[in-house]
């Protein structure tokens, strides 16, 4: 966890320095704002990882001497199959087509999107199919 945090914090630090130099030198706002936002976007997860890395003991994947047995147990819950990504994708497709061909396409689009959101959430809670 420590290395992950350091990568993100390091990148954020570099973007911050670059932003300071650029903004002061050029007085151009668009690039300055974007670099500043890039710095924040690195600090956000980087800070989170760093905060956690100080409060947890090294995971098996951070331990250079770990054996496969030290990682025994549940890795995570993975769905076997799910129809909801496809439903959500098609809903989003219709929403985007509504931008081009007319607002009425939002009806099937948002319908599919909400259906998929509810279905996908319920699947996650219930355990779903596999």
């Amino acid at each position, binding site marked *: 966890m420590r290395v992950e945090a350091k*990568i993100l914090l390091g990148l954020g630090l570099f973007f911050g320095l670059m932003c300071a130099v650029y903004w002061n*030198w050029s007085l151009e706002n*668009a*690039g300055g704002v974007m670099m500043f936002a890039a710095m924040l976007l690195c600090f956000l997860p980087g800070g989170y990882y760093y905060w956690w890395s100080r409060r947890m003991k090294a995971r098996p994947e951070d331990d250079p001497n770990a054996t496969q047995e030290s990682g025994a147990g549940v890795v*995570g819950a993975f769905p076997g199959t799910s129809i909801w*990504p*496809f439903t959500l994708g098609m809903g989003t497709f219709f929403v*985007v087509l509504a931008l081009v061909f007319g607002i009425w396409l939002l009806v099937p689009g948002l319908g599919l999107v909400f259906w998929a959101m509810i279905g996908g959430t319920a699947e996650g809670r219930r355990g779903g199919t596999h």
Partner: protein
Amino acid sequence: MTDVLNPPVHIESPDHGHDEHHGPTGILKWITTTDHKIIGLSYTVTAVIMLVIGGAFAEIIRAQLASPNGNLVSLAQYNELFTMHGSVMIYLFAGPFAFGALANIIVPIQIGAPDMAFPRLNALSYWLYLTGAITMLSGFFVSGGAANFGWVAYAPLSNSINTPGAGADLWIGGLLLTGFSAIFTGVNLCATIFYLRAPGMTMFRMPIFTWNMLVTAILILLAFPVLTAGLVMLYCDRHFGTHIFSVAGGGVPVLWQHLFWFWGHPEVYILALPFFGMVTEIIAVFSRKPVFGYKGMIFATLSIAALSLGVWAHHMFTTGVVLLPFFSIMSLLIAVPTGIKMFNWIGTMWRGQVWFSTAMLMALGFLFTFLIGGLTGIYLASPPLDFFTHDTYFVVAHFHSVVMALVLAGMAGLYYWGPKITGYLLNEAIGKWQFWTLFIGSQVFTFPLYILGLEGMPRRVAVYAHDAQWKALNDLSTLGAVIIGVSTILFVVNVVVSWKKYPAGDNPWDGHTLEWFTTSPPPHHNFYRLPQIRSERPTWDYNHPGHQALHHGQHDEPSQPAPEAPVS
């Protein structure tokens, strides 16, 4: 949902314990799958189809330019063709092929994970990519034709007065969809790499390909939101009467270029880094050596990522409204980590056992082609030389050298990892023909374009009637494009000819990384068992005990046992 346990505990033998037996079959299986390998294969097939479509556009463009006053297509059609050629190749082929197709398949296996961290999000990424591609290409079938403002869509040319048609809106819509697809893949890759590594797979034991994909994912997360925001602004300008990019309403057209290139230049590295990673793996495996300067390589990748956010305006030197020295030095500095990579690749081959398989030949072709593209890129980082060559064919030649190098690297990746996913090798003889046509075609195609650019031929012109002397060089370039087309056909022929013909075995290349430890194709959750991970080459360490990587000054122990025969 299935709780996936670590392999040693969960599954004893390949014969039971799978979900795939009682899942849906046929097209429903394809639609409902969340298996990263099947999603990755869908990505691969879709991206290769996009490569063929974009390539077909390129062939029409080159045929038009074969004569100074060509009338194969009209001026309007020509604008649509090169816009869609660039868009298809950048948005729909190169990126998705790298981080959708190969990363999706390979990264989880390389770090010993059972799947991506968010399998359903992964499936959603694919559907957004597919529908985005359909949306963008459907511009050809609406009145007014497809988008025709160049793949960079500079405002105010892209506003509703200059480009009124639905094709432009479909282009924006398609980009929004593929943009979100990329962002979700980026999130997924980061989470997978941070949370699903196998025990002992520390960050500094990850294969270079996985490292490069991590950095790519971070860059995606930093860059793509900016593009998406820009597209939303562009859409609002077109339809809701805002004047963000229009002078008449008090807006600033150059703002679009800032937004676009703040995404666009990191995008160059989002495209390139995955292919750098593939080449690194391939060169190391086919030289039978560890990656030379492994840590330096990672440092170089991270420096490229860090610098890539500070160079966007080198695309805007000739606007006259950007800070030239800052962007010049930042752009020049990127040459340093890129050079480190080049020397590390050479160092990997040095004193190795270089095996000229098709994958390795493609990787070597990448080295030469990328060297040309990289060196000509240095010129463009210098504002005076950029003023000289900007928007001429020199720039076109420069980035086509780079992207043809990436195509070579991508083909290397397909020849190298294809057997792992399908279980079958491709024909090496046809593969070598494909390599030579692709490699020679790329040089014949790009080299005349450099000269044309220096002679002053601008890009994006359908005719060059005022200087008919350019015809000879254009014809040569067209010939190169035809040779590249032949190589693409050879690839398709190879896939057909080799279909389920040459079983690959689990480890055909004596590979280094975890994907070569599992079966070909890997089982549903990738592994029946994992080796002990003590370096970035767990499979190699397992197969060749006593041949660990050495530091400078270290030497093999004298009482070295005779090396065993390679696996294949």
